[in-house]
């Protein structure tokens, strides 16, 4: 039955419709794989077998009646940042304790309404703050990928799966779900996808509802899928995206058929290559990968153009003002009164301070304090307002670029996956993981990461495509051209299956 876990969403859907196997069999195969592998990978923080089998059974009844919906019977992992009705949701923070939401996120509800099956909740960096999944209160996630040591043999070093959606990327790459939900505030979908050889797309800000997703930085947060193929990602986003009156920033525009748009012609597509992404000290293998990406797109019919996005280098520092500022406001709600952890003190203020001291991890505290500082009296103009003005300039760079090109091609990350503990000592070096992805959130644009090759150590590398607002279709089309040229990637040995 293990073969069932290796299918793409598309293949599994066809298998169900052709009655080659049932939705219950598909769910059982995945639950068995999780049972075996989760000790080694720590990708799931909650597994929900009864829930999954009940959904799968209902899907089988639908399939028998010929009444299948878009994702009927397809088993998914669900990032623990999404509230799930009756199922513990913690954002992988101690401060939410055993919080059980009495409601479902809109993105989650869209998936279940389309017949998808939830296997469980996936690990992530605490409140999605991190680039390696090491800040989770449930411990780090391990990538199924292993790098080669200097002797050329596979090393036992535990590699990070990226973050914050590290449970999602690890589970998809290790065949512990067919696809997964994820969220991206500064790169949290695309960076983990790049580090695990999976496809991840952050749609345009406003394309997916944020309702019922634990908030980190409200002007940057977006939901999106991580999947094993471009088509699977397109299938997922077609369902996840919607207009939602419960999120006033969600966009009231019809959701296109992304799978159909993916199949469009590449002829004459203008691809921009920004010179500012050639950062100092970029490794030759990342440069080579990028060049390779250009030639694949050219072979598919696109034209390549040099462009300039002059404010690129200011995106990351501006992000580290905007995101912590918004986080410090959003996380003010965790006060030990209405839900989650409470650590009693001498009085109410003391209770707040004890609760938040015990409930938040080091990285979350660091960001709340930075956010509090930059928003404190006398500093607002110098930091937050300044950063929001820089953001206007970053967006303007892209607005200008769209006069000449249709899509922008860059590497997704500056380097391949690193080992657990390798970067956790220095917050700034961890922040630099997002150097190529964060501009996209600052400008609100869609961005996709496509697996494009392996590093000298034998671990995955990704290329990023950035699109115009609401032009996810072009990202799927150009992403497919890269996937068609290079193929898909999976770890050579399933060591995590014990």
């Amino acid at each position, binding site marked *: 039955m293990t073969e069932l876990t290796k299918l793409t969403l598309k293949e599994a859907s066809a298998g169900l419709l052709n009655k080659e196997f049932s939705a219950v069999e598909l769910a059982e195969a995945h639950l068995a794989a999780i049972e075996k592998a989760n000790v080694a990978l720590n990708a799931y923080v909650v597994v929900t077998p009864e829930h999954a089998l009940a959904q799968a059974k209902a899907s089988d009844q639908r399939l028998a009646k010929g009444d299948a919906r878009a994702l009927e019977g397809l088993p998914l992992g669900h990032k623990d940042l999404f509230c799930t009705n009756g199922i513990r949701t913690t954002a992988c923070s101690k401060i939410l304790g055993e919080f*059980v939401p*009495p409601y479902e996120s809109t993105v989650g509800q869209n998936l279940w309404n389309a017949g998808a099956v939830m296997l469980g909740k996936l690990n992530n960096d605490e409140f999605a703050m991190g680039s390696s999944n090491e800040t989770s209160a449930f411990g780090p996630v391990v990538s199924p990928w292993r790098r080669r040591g200097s002797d050329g043999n596979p090393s036992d070093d535990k590699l990070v799966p990226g973050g914050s959606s590290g449970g999602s990327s690890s589970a998809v790459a290790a065949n512990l779900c067919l696809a997964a939900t994820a969220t991206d505030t500064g790169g949290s979908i695309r960076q983990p996808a790049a580090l695990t050889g999976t496809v991840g797309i952050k749609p*345009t*800000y*406003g394309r997916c509802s944020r309702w019922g997703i634990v908030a980190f930085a409200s*002007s940057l947060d977006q939901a999106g899928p991580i999947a094993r193929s471009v088509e699977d990602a397109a299938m997922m986003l077609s369902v996840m995206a919607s207009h939602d*009156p419960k999120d*006033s*920033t969600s*966009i*009231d525009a019809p959701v296109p058929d992304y799978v159909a748009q993916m199949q469009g012609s590449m002829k004459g597509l203008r691809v921009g290559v920004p010179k500012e992404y050639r950062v100092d000290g970029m490794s030759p293998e990342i440069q080579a990968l990028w060049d390779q990406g250009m030639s694949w797109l050219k072979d598919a019919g696109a034209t390549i153009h040099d462009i300039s996005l002059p*404010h690129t280098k*200011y995106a990351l*520092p*501006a992000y*580290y*003002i905007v995101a912590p500022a918004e986080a*410090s406001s959003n996380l003010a709600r965790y*006060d030990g*009164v*209405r*839900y*989650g952890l*409470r650590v009693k*003190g*001498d*009085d*109410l*203020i*003391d*209770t*707040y*301070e*004890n609760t*938040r*001291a015990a409930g*938040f991890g080091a990285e979350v*505290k*660091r960001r*709340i*304090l*930075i956010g*509090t*500082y930059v928003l*404190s009296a006398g500093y607002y103009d110098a*930091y937050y307002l*300044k*950063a*929001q*003005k*820089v*953001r*206007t*300039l970053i*967006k303007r760079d892209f607005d200008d670029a769209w006069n000449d090109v249709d899509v922008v091609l860059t590497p997704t990350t500056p380097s391949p996956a690193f080992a657990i503990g390798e970067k956790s000592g220095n*917050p*700034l070096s961890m922040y630099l993981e997002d150097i190529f992805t964060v501009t996209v959130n600052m*400008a*609100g644009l869609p961005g996709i990461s496509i697996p494009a090759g392996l590093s000298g150590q034998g671990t995955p590398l990704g290329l990023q495509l950035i699109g115009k*607002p609401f032009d996810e279709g072009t990202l799927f089309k150009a992403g497919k051209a890269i996937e068609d040229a290079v193929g898909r990637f999976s770890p050579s040995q399933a060591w995590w299956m014990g």
Partner: protein
Amino acid sequence: MHVDETTVRRIARLARIKITDEEAKGLEKELSGILDWVEQLKEVDTEAVEPMTRVVAQDLKMRDDMVTDGAKADDIVKNAPESEDHFFVVPKVVE
């Protein structure tokens, strides 16, 4: 921008997070490092630039002024660490 220990303590107080002496020392260094690094934004001329307030131009929608949800007191207090008769219970705040 150097943040001294007194400032770290003031910020932690504003954020309602109790910090130990050891944490305060570590944070002094980390926050100073991060704030030094964001100083580079000063290089950017933003004199005539409007701050970004929204990503996509869209008027906020108005909804009908009607009650559409409610009568969920049980749900609302269900996750509270301490509640009584649909009230959240907190330590005494007035003598």
